[in-house]
């Protein structure tokens, strides 16, 4: 039986079915925390454990999907290029805001990991957690962390930020759409941006731009 539950068509097909169902679940419930990627990962882990399918089989069978990560990261250049007008209009605020955001993310993760006594491997995996998944995974792999921890941390950061940041702005009565847009993109990447798009066009554009620039700053800062 287990020999039949194998191969690229089985695993790629399984990932597709689970992901499509997870997307539908979020469309129906409209809950931010029911993130399709997070739900798919949990369901697939459950399936592998219940059916006792070795992880090595899954890894081999799903390698076609993993291969598409590099092209997916590459084409992130397009949304960045499309936002060049907004970049010119708010150049100083965007550059300084995203740079300090990326720096504070890296410094706070390093410091907090030391305070909580987390080891080097986990620290390296958590470092790029505030940037978009493709960039975060690349940084993690290059620095020798575990990509799986990075993916989980990035998703949690995105969900948390997209819920908490707009709430804080309302509570503290901050009415600055530039600050809101850039903060959402810098602190919680694409998930923050999807929230920013709901709030307004300017917030959405600024947030999308902040993702890319924060990502580049994080790559450079993590080299040091």
């Amino acid at each position: 039986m287990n020999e039949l539950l194998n191969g690229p068509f089985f695993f790629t097909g399984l990932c597709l079915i689970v992901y499509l169902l997870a997307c539908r679940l979020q469309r129906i419930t409209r809950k931010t925390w029911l993130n399709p990627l997070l739900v798919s990962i949990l369901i697939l882990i459950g399936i592998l454990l219940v059916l006792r399918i070795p992880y090595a089989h899954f890894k081999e069978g799903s390698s076609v999907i993993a291969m598409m990560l590099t092209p997916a990261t590459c084409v992130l250049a397009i949304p960045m290029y499309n936002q060049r007008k907004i970049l010119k209009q708010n150049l100083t605020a965007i550059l300084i805001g995203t740079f300090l955001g990326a720096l504070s993310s890296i410094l706070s993760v390093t410091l907090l990991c030391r305070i909580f006594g987390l080891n080097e491997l986990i620290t390296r995996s958590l470092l790029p957690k505030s940037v978009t998944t493709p960039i975060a995974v690349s940084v993690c792999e290059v620095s020798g962390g575990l990509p799986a921890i990075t993916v989980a941390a990035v998703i949690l950061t995105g969900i948390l930020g997209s819920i908490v940041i707009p709430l804080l702005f309302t509570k503290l009565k901050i009415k600055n759409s530039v600050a809101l847009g850039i903060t959402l993109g810098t602190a919680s990447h694409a998930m923050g941006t999807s929230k920013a798009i709901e709030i307004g066009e300017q917030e959405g554009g600024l947030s999308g731009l902040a993702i890319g620039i924060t990502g580049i700053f994080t790559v450079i800062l993590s080299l040091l």
Partner: protein
Amino acid sequence: MKILKQITIVFLLCWLGEVISALLPFAFPGSIVAMLLLLGCLSTSLLRIEDISGFAGFLLANMAFFFIPAGVSILDSFGAIQNDLLPILAVIVLSTLITAAVTCGSILLITKLQKRGSAR
């Protein structure tokens, strides 16, 4: 035919990115090099968005799907983190709040300074 051309362009950029990344004296992700290469090609009008928009649109619209294998690999590395789940969660929550506060604070300060500058 058209979509094959688009895939060719993107894959070539990815390969170039990996080559440049391997030649660099420091560790810099190849996928990010590929992204910067594409940004450069678009800015210099070497490529137009229409040249790759079909394939790129597919990748951008379904981005999350491609991370499923990376996420499931936590099965393989769960042993490395199972004793540290709570502290890891604490780091994620606290550092997200710190990052948001610093970003927001610095932009509020900048816009205030810019307003004061233009008022004078």
